[in-house]
Structures are given as structure tokens and as C-alpha cells.
């Protein structure tokens, strides 16, 4: 994930992922678990490069669930959910954003390390980095 400079706009390569919620009983589930948040300890995050990164990460994917079907991977950092920014959210706020009862579908913008590598190799080193 790109280095985060406070006060500077954040640049990242993201992938758009759309997950349809599955109804189980009276709950709508997405089939993955999140960790992180600005109120959590970032040093515990096994997926982040920068151990000061307090973003929301995907920590587990239920195999065969909606998130798995939509190609969400473990270790993804969620940047946006349905247009709402997730980089400066508390853990509980993030959870609430994802589990709105009125929404059937969540559109996530996620970023992962392999995306950057893929872009770099495909662009051949001309990718503008800040």
C-alpha cells in the first residue's frame, strides 16, 4: 500500500468489487471479516506493509460466500464502501457501513499489494509515483 503522508492526498490502485448480500435467516451477510480501524492497534495487523496504517482490512473470507464469489481476497484494504470513505473510520463505524439493512449490494473499492505490482509490470515502470 502506498505510503500515507498526512495532509497529502492518498494515491492507490484500487479494484472495484461488487458483492451481493446473502440472506441467512433474518440477516444479510457478506461472508468476510474485517479488522482494523482508527481506534485499533495497527501494529497487530498482519496484512499491512506500513504498521502505522489504521485502515480497514479483510482478515478472513468465508469460502463459498458472496465475498469469495466476488473475488475479494484476504488482506485487501477497503478504501470505499458504496462511496463512503473507509480509510479514516473506527472499527464499529466500518462494520455499520457494511451491514446496512437497507442495502442489498455493496460496492467496494479495495487495494492490495499485488495490484500495484501488476500495474507496475504492465506499465513498464512509467507509472507515476509520488
Amino acid at each position, binding site marked *: 500500500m502506498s505510503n500515507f503522508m498526512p495532509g497529502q492526498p492518498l494515491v492507490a490502485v484500487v479494484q472495484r468489487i461488487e458483492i451481493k448480500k446473502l440472506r441467512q435467516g433474518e440477516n444479510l*451477510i*457478506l461472508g*468476510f*471479516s*474485517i*479488522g*482494523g480501524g482508527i481506534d*485499533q*492497534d495497527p501494529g*497487530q*495487523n498482519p496484512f499491512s506493509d506500513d504498521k502505522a496504517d489504521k485502515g480497514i482490512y479483510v*482478515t*478472513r473470507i*468465508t469460502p463459498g460466500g458472496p465475498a469469495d464469489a466476488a473475488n475479494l481476497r484476504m488482506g485487501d484494504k477497503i478504501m470505499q464502501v458504496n462511496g463512503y470513505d473507509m480509510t479514516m473510520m473506527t*472499527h464499529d463505524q466500518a*462494520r455499520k457501513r*457494511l*451491514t446496512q439493512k437497507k442495502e442489498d449490494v455493496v460496492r467496494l473499492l479495495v487495494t492490495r499489494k499485488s495490484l500495484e505490482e501488476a500495474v507496475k509490470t504492465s506499465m513498464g515502470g512509467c507509472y507515476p509515483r509520488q
Partner: protein
Amino acid sequence: MDNESTYSGYSYKSSQSRSSRKHRDRRDRHRSKSRDSSIRDKSVTIQAPGEPLLDAESTRGDDRDDNWGETTTVVTGTSVDSVSNEDLTRMSKDLEDSSPLQCRRFLGPALGGVLGLFALVTPLAFLALPQLLWRDTLEPCGTPCEGLYISLAFKLLILLISTWALFLRPPRATLPRFFIFRCLLLALVFLFVASYWLFYGVRVLEPRETDYRGIVGYAASLVDALLFIQYLALVLLEVRHLQPAFCLKVVRTTDGASRFYNVGHLSIQRAAVWLLDQYYNDFPIYNPALLNLPKSILSKKMSAFKVYNLGEENSTNNSTGQSRTMIAAASRKRDNSHTEYYYEEAEVERRVRKRKARLVVAVEEAFTHIKRHQDEEGGVSSPKHPREVMDPREAAQAIFAPMARAMQKYLRATRQQSYHSMESIINHLQFCITHNMTPKAFLELYLSPGPTLQYLDTSRGRQWTLVSEEPVTSALRQGQVFSLRRLDFSLVVTVTPLPFLNLGEEFIDPKRHKFVMKMQSETSV
């Protein structure tokens, strides 16, 4: 009704019967009849022979004193544990119970005292007899003997002092059987001293032994042995039972007051004595008036059914059948006695609280009327109305008047009126005034039932009966049950051993106290 006679010493007024003069007159006339008509009239008053004590004071002519003298029955001098004043024969039996024979108490200690004195005198006799009888033929014995004399003297002094400290204490109880350890020790001392005398008689007196140093050494060894016997006595009588080994649960049969005590290895009778000491301290006074449900509630159940015999001649068969059908029918009937009991309880509690509030206010106001008189030398200013200086007794009597009525009503509400006569209240008031107590400290005696010891006349002894299935000199064991009985209640004691404690160890290095923020919480969505 049978059970009325036990509680007949009290008069309790229900909420219906206020203390109006008309009602009191009616009650006076129906005094004997009201015992039976408990269904319609809840107040029961029995004239008791103990009352004439108060009549002298009740002739003051005040309203409240008439009230006081009529409805309060006072317990004087007999055992306060069972309060029934109407039966004179019972009172005399009570007197017998509470003052045991004075002589028997001192028999055991007297015997021990004689033996002890004999044992103490023996070494001196050992030393003195050769000097008196055959002084001329004795070998002179210089410094070693004098050293032995000194050690002998000091040992005897120590023996004397410790005997006084340990054994010459007035006994607190007479036990039903022999106190085994004490008998053992007395026998040991007797045997010891007797054998020493035997040896002395045969080996020293007969042949007129001339080696005086040996005789002095012999006497010194006797004193040493006596000191060791005293050590044994100390351990057996005083020290062995200090380590707690059993837990005794004591339950009073009449009102269920219970306590748990830890004791060591004792025989049943010794444990009983120790327990009774604690009983007088810890258990609140047994008040028979506080116990039962009001008669109106209980009697309704019984009078609801009448069973008729329809021609059957077999009477024995029918009586059991009759009672069984009555009980079955009574249990099937939807009875509301529990709601009545609940409301009655709530009513009583409310009344007690109201009277307590009045009492507290009255006492506080009364206490503001007096203050301690400070001696002013030379008179700062001549007072306009010179205040009369009173001693505590007069001050108490002066401020008792405004609070008397509230006090009387409160005592009657809590059924304590038999424990506190007017005289005792004034005495207590005088005591509190003398010691600068606040009204709250004065009221402490009346607001909560104190330990039994507080109400006791300590000049008399108390008679208790130890009821046990095993011999009372046997040691305490797990699962034993024995009871201590008095005339109208008993204490049931159950013995359980204290658990064996297996204490382990865990060492925590102080540097190991470290903290981290909580793990990243993972929420599944």
C-alpha cells in the same frame, strides 16, 4: 387454645383497638373471656402477678402512667430467657433452675487446691525433715548445696506464680461428667508425689541417710518434675484446643437464629461450655412475643370444615380418616392466609417505623433541654434566672417526661416492654447523660434487640441441660449432633470438620506485569 398460655404475659394491641378509655374498660371486663374469643378480638390481656411492682408508681395519676402500669408486665430477677409470669409454680421452678447449689461448684477446685498445696510443700518437707530429725549425723554440704537451694527456691516461686495464674481461677461452669484431662493431671500429680514420698520414706527416713546433698538433689528433681507436669497441664488444658478443627453450627429452636463457630479439639461438654459463653454474647435476646402468626390467620383454616359421622361405629378408623379429610380439604381450599400474613407484616412494620420516628424525635428534643453545667468561677455575669443545678438522676427524671409516651408506645410495638421497666429506662438515661452520650447512643439499647447478656441478671447461675446421644466426654467428631436445652428453647449444635487446606504456591515476577492494547477485533459482516 393451648398455645395462648405461653404468650399470655404480653398484651399487644391490633390496629383496631386504640387506647381509648371506653375500649379499655370493655377489655377490662372481658379479661378472662377474651382469651377464647380470639377470632373477633385480637387483643389479649392477662393480669399477671408481677404487676404490683408497678402499681406504686402508677398511682401518680397521670394518663400515661395508668397505661404503663396496666399493660406492661415486668420481669424481675427470674430468668429472662423464658418469660411467663402467670404461673407461680413455674416461677419458683425457674428460681431453682437459675441458682444452682453453691457448694458443688467449688468441690473440684478445692480438691485440686489441696493436692497442689501438698505437692508444693513436699520439697520443703524433704529438705526440712533430715535437719529436724538427725541433724548431727548429716554430712556438711557447702557451696553445691547452696546453689541447689537457690535454684530450688526460684523454681518453687515460679511454680507458685504459674499455679496461681493458671489454676486458681474461679470455675465458670459445672460439667455433667468429669473433666477428663483435669482428672488425669490430678491423678498424675498425686501418683508422682506419692511415689516420691514412698521412695523418700524407704530410702531416706528409714536408714537415716546422711548424704544431705543427695537429699537436696532429690528435692530439686521433684520440683523439676512438678514444673514439667505443669507444662503438661498447660498444653492439655489451655493450648491444645486453640487450633481450630471443627465448625459448629448453632441453631436456636424457637426462632431460628443461627451462628457458626470454630473450635478446636474439645470434648462435647467443654465445647458446650465454650459455646454458651459465645451464645450470651452473640445471640439476640429470645423474645417469645415476636414469634407466631396472629391467631386470626391460623384459626381460620381450622374452623372452616366440620366433619360429620354418618352412622359408623368404628371410631378409631374414623378419627384418622377424619383428620386426613380435613387436612386434604383444607389444603385444597383456596386459602388466602398468606396474603393476610403479608399485609399484617407490612402493617406491623409500618407501625413500628412510625413509632420509631416519633420516638427518635421525642428523644432528640428531650436532650436539647439539658446541657452540662460548666463551673464558672467568679460569675461572669449574674444570670437573670439562676438555673437550678441538678445531679444526673434528677436531670434524667426531668427529661424523661416528654419522651415517656413515645418510648412506651415504641416498646409495645416491638414487644420489648417486658425487658425495660420505667426504672431501668431512667437509669439508662442517667447513665447516658453522665457520659455525654447523644440521643442516638441512648436509643441504641432500644432500637435493636441486644445480645442475651445485656438483659441478664448476672448474680445468678444459668441451668442448661446437655442432650447428647454419645457420652459427653467423648471428643468432637464429624456429624455429631447435640443440643443444649433450657426450659422453653434449646440450641441444636451440628459438628462439621473444617476442610483440610492444600496450599500451593505461585511466584509472579513483578517484571511480568505487562499490558498491550487489545487485539484487533475482528468482526464478520
